[in-house]
């Protein structure tokens, strides 16, 4: 372990945290991923809305695409045109953001147009204001992940054998999986259904009854991003930051060439600690909230 490697590792962790947060907020503004099932359903059950609707694909494949495009472009600029790395990565992320914009626009127009029979309109002002917001967040995600990939492929003393676009694709897939699993729950279970009591998931009877009023006026997806940026986004950033940091930390403090067993053992210790912490968290929640008063079964809490 040397100070240079640890510094780079810290930078990777910080970049990953930002990437995770921006990925989640990008999916919230665009209403991608699983909670979009309710946005899709809303118009069909009589609740047309002004929420963006871009289920391009699952978040992992789409983010893998943005990040691989950004890293591929950056790699070409660095290796074939000898451009500075930072500028190349920024340009690569811009190309990825353009890809994102194309997919977002077609997804929003296609999905809303197909729901015309339910009085769901295509709002051109929503398209104009939200698409650029989505692209901006996609740029941040692609930029941060391409930076992480660049550090791993070129800068660390022990460079990764995979080419930079492949590393970016895998991290893009991981950040999408994490955003879809963590931050999106804050959007789907809480923000979309703020008209129900806090402390429970969506009751099946309320499916599709998403909140359409904002703190002032009619709710848009940018209002949702404002809300989710307070918890869901940073939580996603924490999860991805933890993954990138902890996974690389064990290979930085020990030398994989001579201390491979210690690298693996450290990982196992981390996994055990995470399992114990989750159990403590479960105990805390059960004690704090208690059983649901509506429960009428025989099993004692």
């Amino acid at each position: 372990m040397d100070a240079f490697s640890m510094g780079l590792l810290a930078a990777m962790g910080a970049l990953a945290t930002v990437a995770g947060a921006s990925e989640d907020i990008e999916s919230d503004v665009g209403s991608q991923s699983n909670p979009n099932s309710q946005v899709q359903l809303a118009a069909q059950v009589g609740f047309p809305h002004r929420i963006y609707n871009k289920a391009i694909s699952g978040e992992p494949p789409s983010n893998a695409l943005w990040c691989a495009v950004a890293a591929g472009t950056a790699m070409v600029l660095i290796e074939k045109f000898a451009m500075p790395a930072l500028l190349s990565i920024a340009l690569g992320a811009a190309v990825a953001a353009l890809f994102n914009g194309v997919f977002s626009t077609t997804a929003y127009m296609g999905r809303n147009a197909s729901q015309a029979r339910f009085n769901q309109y295509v709002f051109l002002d929503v398209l104009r204001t939200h698409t650029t917001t989505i692209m901006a967040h996609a740029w941040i995600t692609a930029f941060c992940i391409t930076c992480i990939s660049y550090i791993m492929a070129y800068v660390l003393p022990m460079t990764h054998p995979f080419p930079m676009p492949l590393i970016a694709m895998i991290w893009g897939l991981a950040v999408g999986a994490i955003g879809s699993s963590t931050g999106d729950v804050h959007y789907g279970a809480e923000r979309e259904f703020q008209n129900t009591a806090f402390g429970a998931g969506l009751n099946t009877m309320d499916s599709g009854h998403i909140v359409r009023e904002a703190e002032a006026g009619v709710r848009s997806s940018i209002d949702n991003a404002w809300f989710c940026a307070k918890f869901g986004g940073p939580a996603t950033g924490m999860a991805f930051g933890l993954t990138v940091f902890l996974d690389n930390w064990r290979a930085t403090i020990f030398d994989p060439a001579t201390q491979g067993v210690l690298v693996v053992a450290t990982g196992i210790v981390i996994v055990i600690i995470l399992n114990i912490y989750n159990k403590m968290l479960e105990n805390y929640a059960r004690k704090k909230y208690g059983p649901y008063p509506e429960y009428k079964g025989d099993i004692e809490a």
Partner: protein
Amino acid sequence: MTGIDATSVMYIIEIIIGGLLVAIGVHFVPVGGAPAAMAQATGVGTGTVQLAAGSGLTGLLAAGLMMKMTDNIILIVASGAVGAMIMIDATMLVGNWVYIFGVGTPPASAKVNYDPITKLPQPPYMAPGTVGQGIPTVCYVSGTIGGLLGGAGGSLIYFALLSINGNPGLSGIFAIGIFLVNAVLASWNIQGTIEGFHDTKFKRWPRVVQAALLASAIIGVMAVMITGGA
């Protein structure tokens, strides 16, 4: 193109074993799909393939780095498995933060009355009109095992491919492809959602062994022949 000799057969067998580990590992990953994203069902609020691929391929990065330093298969596979476990554990943990602090619900399983590991009662903590929420201990442990198997499987496939052609990029992308084929087969078998090894759907795993065996054998032969010529 290259011919199939005894060494190639050994690598194909490794690819098949890796594929089987991935397919079985996916059955351990607790995913509730879209309903879980609304805290309507127990498990992680995403798809099986998405989470399994996210964790397994994070493990592949760790295995790739380790294989650059050593040719010890146990260390490479273990490093991949641990990388995948770290990713899935961090994800499930933060997922629980969101369920507990963002939505205000305690984790509860809908498939068992008592958590098989902690023996804690589950139904009283299940929100009305839902089939559980969050990631209780049994699901968390199951997910960790899923990460272990998925990461180990992906790493084993990568090990076999890299041993043949010595090209990390080519081997990595083929390993991702073989991983995804087996993860999707498993996802069809469990039809979208599963809570983990305590779920009744878990008993379907022998079926996926047959499918993954066949698919991995075909892809293994193709992968060895194609990448061997690189």
